């Protein structure tokens, strides 16, 4: 079953055709990699899927619902979580609360209820414990009460991953999660992605690092010039002449 269906999506910026009738299907429960040269439209596509940009043409269906013209918030409410290339944290808020915000539909966020402590306190405790467990999962528990502007780049990455464990999203998009990440943290991040998959979350990863994709991906799509050139396992892709010419280069095929 396809959880995400992108059909014939086009997007033009001034003179640049960023996406040109791009079609891509993501199967539920898989880890789907997207590779391609810079400027191929990967990030634009992810931005459109998550509601940050409106496509010029085409249709996007997520979990049976047409989300083509949905706002960011509306897409998120359906269970699609997008993580950014540089983790976006709330700097002057604690790590714990940075994690807790990942849980949607909190009762205490309504104006009236917020004045009646009893109506939200037990939910708050439960969210807090869930967030605490997620931080434990990613090895960030010792920083729970530090402010997010006081943690390192790698820790920010881990916290960003931890958020994906909290709201139980149906699909998570990671945009170049291991760019500028040391090898040890990279192994850790691939472990976390596989763990997400185990929990039944579908994962889409936009990435340049093939070794990383090798560890986690069930299927990889290659994007070139705003279109999906081909899809398949990483081995299929390495053998494909067009991909080698467009993206990998000769020495990567060995």
């Amino acid at each position: 079953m396809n959880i995400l269906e992108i059909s014939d999506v086009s997007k033009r910026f001034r003179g640049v055709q960023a996406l040109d009738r791009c079609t891509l299907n993501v199967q539920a429960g898989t880890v789907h990699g997207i590779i391609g040269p810079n400027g191929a439209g990967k990030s634009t596509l992810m931005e459109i899927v998550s509601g940050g940009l409106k496509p010029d043409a085409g249709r996007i269906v997520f979990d049976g619902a047409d989300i083509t013209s949905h706002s960011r918030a509306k897409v998120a409410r359906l269970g699609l979580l997008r993580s950014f290339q540089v983790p976006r944290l709330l700097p002057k808020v604690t790590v714990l609360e940075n994690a807790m915000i990942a849980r949607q539909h909190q009762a205490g966020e309504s104006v009236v209820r917020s004045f009646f402590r009893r109506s939200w306190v037990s939910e708050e405790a439960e969210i807090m414990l869930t967030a605490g467990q997620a931080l434990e999962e990613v090895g960030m528990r010792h920083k729970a009460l530090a402010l997010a502007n006081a943690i390192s780049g790698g820790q920010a990455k881990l916290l960003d991953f931890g958020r994906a464990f909290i709201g139980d999203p149906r699909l998570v998009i990671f945009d170049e999660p291991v760019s500028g990440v040391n090898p040890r943290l990279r192994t850790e991040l691939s472990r976390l992605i596989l763990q997400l998959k185990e929990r039944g979350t579908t994962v889409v990863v936009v990435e340049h690092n093939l070794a990383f994709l090798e560890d986690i991906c069930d299927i990889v799509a290659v994007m070139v010039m705003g279109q999906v050139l081909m899809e398949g396992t990483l081995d299929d892709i390495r053998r494909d002449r067009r991909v080698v010419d467009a993206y990998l280069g000769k020495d990567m095929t060995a």
Partner: protein
Amino acid sequence: MGTYLLTLGAFAAIQATVVLGLNIQFGYAGILNFAYITFVAIGAYTTAVLTLGSGSQYFVQQHIVHVTVPWPLALLISGIVSSVLSLFLIMLLMKRLRSDYLAVAMVALGEVVWTVIGNDTSLFNGWDGLVGIPQPYNNLGSTTTAEAAFFGITVAVALLAYLFTRNIYRSPMGRLLRSVREDPTVAETFGRSVGRARLVAFCLGGFLAGVGGGLMAMQTGAWSPNAFTPLETFFIFAALIVGGTASPLGSVVGAVVLLGVIDEITRWLPAILAPSLISSLRFILIGIIVLVVLKVRSQGIVPEPNARRYQQFLRRELRDKWAPPLGRAAADDPAAAPAWAASRAYVSGAVRKLLAARSSR
């Protein structure tokens, strides 16, 4: 001297109420409302109109508002009017303008309202303003008793405003507002409506502005455009920054220190300078204090609670919520006691671990 201190105390308490309102808007949600004093003025005029009495000679009394309401109701209505007008305004502006543009539009709005009210004598008597606004319980024997009564009222209102603001900070809605302040895109990424959150902050802050404005009008007994020059907004911002942005206690401290004490200190300065310069000294003094605080302690005198709030929350949870019910359940069903004990150990263990995670700041 006693009467003077009571009057000064009441003044500081009113300022605290007003600063707390701005704290919700700017401190929590990060909205740069440079027309904040306008909403204070709306509250002041509302209270004036509702309490002046039909005997007064002003147009509004004779032709629009025929009723006179008791002071608590007048304050409440002032808050609501100010809040509702905030709502209208923000629905008009916020849809179209981003934060920085909104700030500029707000400056313009403050000027426009100020000029219109000042020049339109038929509405609120123009620059001369409204006089004879009654202060509650001002007929209680001596001046000192009357001032003491009003001091009591203002402190009670300020206390309620403080608890109100603190409660918002501690609730999940407070977290939502702070996340909108820190990064609206993150809030949206997690499914929150940023526009709605800003609207809520704006209305709640506008309510406190209105109530504070009503009290101001009652204290001075008069209200005219001179009392809400657009520049006043920046003194309220200064008090918020000096006290500690987003900190409820900080707002109170900032209001008392900057708007209460410092404002009055200029009065006691030796008359070396020409008397006309003394009032300008207020601006210089406030400017210097803001600069010094930003340099020495940029988070303000009382910083935002943040992590401390969570430690308190966790402790209370552990003590009040988890431990007693689990104990009772174990007592009711001895067979299940080991399971309950295990779950209790799990919960308290999880909470303790989180508690142990001290901030490394």
